[in-house]
C-alpha cells in the first residue's frame, strides 16, 4: 500500500516537473548560463581583441575598484536606495487607490482606464525614442517637460525641516508617480477581480460601511498583489535606465570594461536581492492568501 502511494506522489511530481521543464530550459539558456559568464567576467580582466574575448583572472580587483576606488558607485547606490524607499510606498498606495476607484462602475470607466495606461504605452520603447531623437522636446516622458507643473507650493523657509523636504519632493514628483503607476494600477485591477463579490454582500448585510469594507476585505485580500506590485516597483526603479547606478554600469559596459561592469552588476544585484528579501520577510509577513 505504501509503495503504491509513493509511486503516486512520484507520478504527480513528474507531472509537476514536466510542466516546469519547458520554462526551466529557457531560464537555463538565457539566464543561468549568461549569469555564470558575468560572474567569471567580474573576477577577470576582460580584453577584446581581433581573435575574440580574453579573460585573465584578477581576483577581487574589480570589486575593490567598485567599492573603494570608484568615487561614484557607492554614493549612487545609496542614493538610489534612499529614493526607492521614498517612492515605492507612495506609488503602490496611489495605484491601489486609483485601481479601487477604477474598479467601481461608472460611466466612462473604460476611457478612464485607458487614460491611466497611456503613459506606459508612450514611455515604452520606440515612440519615445523617436520623439526625443528629434530633439523637439528632450523628454516627453520625464518630469522635466512638465516643468510648468513643478511648483514649490511651500514657502522657502518651511522647506528646511526634513518632513517638509520630503513633502516637497513628493509634490514635485506627483507627475512622476502618476506617470509610473500604469502597470501597478493594472496589476491591482486584475487583483481586485479575484475577490469574491459575496464577501461584500455579506459585509453590507451586516452593515459595514464602504470604508470598513476597504480595510477589512479589500486591503487584506489584495495583499498578495501588493507584494507583487512592491516587488515590481522596486525592480522597476532599480533597473530603470535612468537610475544612476544603471548609468554607471552602462558606461563601463560601453567602454569595453566588461569586468568592472560585471562586478558592479553583481554588487547591485546582491543589494537588490537583500532589499527584496527584507521587504518580503518584514513588510509582507502577513500576506493573506484566499486559501487560508
Amino acid at each position, binding site marked *: 500500500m505504501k509503495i503504491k502511494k509513493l509511486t503516486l506522489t512520484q507520478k504527480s511530481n513528474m507531472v509537476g516537473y514536466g510542466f516546469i521543464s519547458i520554462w526551466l530550459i529557457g531560464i537555463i539558456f538565457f539566464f543561468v548560463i549568461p549569469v555564470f559568464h558575468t560572474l567569471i567576467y567580474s573576477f577577470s580582466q576582460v580584453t577584446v581583441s581581433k581573435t575574440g574575448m580574453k579573460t585573465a583572472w584578477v581576483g577581487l580587483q574589480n570589486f575593490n575598484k567598485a567599492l573603494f576606488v570608484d568615487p561614484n558607485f557607492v554614493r549612487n547606490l545609496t542614493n538610489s536606495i534612499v529614493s526607492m524607499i521614498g517612492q515605492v510606498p507612495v506609488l503602490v498606495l496611489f495605484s491601489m487607490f486609483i485601481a479601487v476607484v477604477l474598479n467601481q462602475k461608472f460611466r466612462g470607466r473604460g476611457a478612464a482606464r485607458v487614460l491611466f495606461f497611456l503613459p506606459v504605452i508612450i514611455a515604452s520603447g520606440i515612440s519615445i525614442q523617436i520623439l526625443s531623437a528629434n530633439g*523637439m522636446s528632450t523628454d516627453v516622458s520625464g518630469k522635466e517637460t512638465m516643468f510648468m507643473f513643478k511648483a514649490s507650493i511651500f514657502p522657502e523657509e518651511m522647506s528646511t525641516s526634513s518632513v517638509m523636504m520630503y513633502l516637497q519632493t513628493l509634490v514635485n514628483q506627483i507627475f512622476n508617480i502618476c506617470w509610473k503607476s500604469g502597470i501597478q494600477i493594472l496589476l491591482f485591477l486584475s487583483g481586485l477581480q479575484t475577490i469574491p463579490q459575496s464577501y461584500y454582500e455579506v459585509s453590507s448585510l451586516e452593515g459595514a460601511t464602504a470604508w470598513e469594507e476597504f480595510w477589512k476585505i479589500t486591503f487584506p485580500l489584495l495583499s498578495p498583489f501588493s507584494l507583487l506590485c512592491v516587488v515590481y516597483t522596486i525592480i522597476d526603479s532599480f533597473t530603470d535606465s535612468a537610475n544612476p547606478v544603471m548609468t554607471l554600469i552602462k558606461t563601463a559596459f560601453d567602454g569595453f570594461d566588461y569586468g568592472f561592469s560585471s562586478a558592479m552588476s553583481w554588487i547591485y544585484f546582491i543589494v537588490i536581492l537583500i532589499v527584496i528579501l527584507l521587504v518580503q520577510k518584514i513588510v509582507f509577513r502577513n500576506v493573506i492568501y484566499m486559501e487560508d
Partner: protein
Amino acid sequence: MQKEAKLKKKYRSSNGEHVRATKKKRVSRSAGGDFLIVLMLVSIGAFMSLPFVLSVANAFKPLEEIFIFPPRFYAINPTFDNFKQLFRLSTNLWVPFSRYIFNSIFVSVIVTTFHIIFAAMCAYPLAKGNFPGRKQIFLIIQTALLFTGGTLAIPVYIVMSVLRMVDTYWALILPPIAGSLGLFLMRQFMLQIESETLESARIDGATELQIFWQVVMPLVKPAWLTLLIFSFKDIWNATGTSVIYSEELKMLPTALSQIATGGIARAGVGAAAALIMMIPPMIVFIISQSNVIETMSYSGIK
C-alpha cells in the same frame, strides 16, 4: 467533465446576477463623494494625458510648428503631410515595408502567446504543486527578475551564437518567452485559487493538463489578460538590433526609427511614426481590459 463545466457556467452566471444586484445598491451612495472621485479622476487623468495629447498634436503639425517652444498642445494648421511623407518614404525602402509589418506582428503574436502559456504552465505547479525543489526553482526565477539585463547582453549573445540563433527569428522570439516577470505574476494569481476546486476536479478524474486548461486558466483570466498587455507592449517595442543583422528580419520599430531619425527635417515624420507605433498596444489594451471587466470575480466552491 462537461457536466462540471456546465455547472460552473451556471454558477458563474448566478454569481454575475449577485454582482449586478450589489452594484445597484452602490449607486445610492452619497452623490458628493462620487462627485469628488470623478473630479479627482478627471484632474489626474487630464494631467496624465498631456504627453499623449502633445504627441498626437505633433504628428499633425507642419514642420515649422514642431519646434515652437514651449510646446503647444494643438496644431495651428493641422496637416496630414507627415503621414503622407512617412508613407512615401516607406514605399522607397530597400525591403518592402510590409515585410517589417509582418515581422513585427509575427514575432509579437508568437512571443505573447507562448509567453503566456509557458508562464502559466510553469506557475501552476509552483503555486499549487507540492514536490521537492519547487522553492529552489522559484528562487532561481525570482533572481532572474532582479538581475539587471544590460550586462547579460554579451553572455546571452554568446549563448545564441553557440545555438546558431543569431540573425534568425529565434533570437527575437526565445529570450522574451523566457522572461520571468510573467511567471511571477501568474504564480501570485494562482496562489489565490482554492485547492478544493482543483481537488474536486481531480476526484472527477481530470488529468493535470485538463485541470490546467479547463479550471486554472479560466480562473486566472484577469491575470493572463493583464500579462497579454505587458508582454505585447514589450515585444512590440523591441528592436533586437544587437542580434538581427539581415534587413529583411528587422522589426517595425527599427524600420520606423531609421526613417524617422534622419535629422531635423524628419521630425514631423518621426512624430507620425511614433503615433502609429502607439496604436497596436492601445488596441490590445482596450480588448484585454474590456474582457477583464467582464470576468467577474470567481468564488470557487464553498
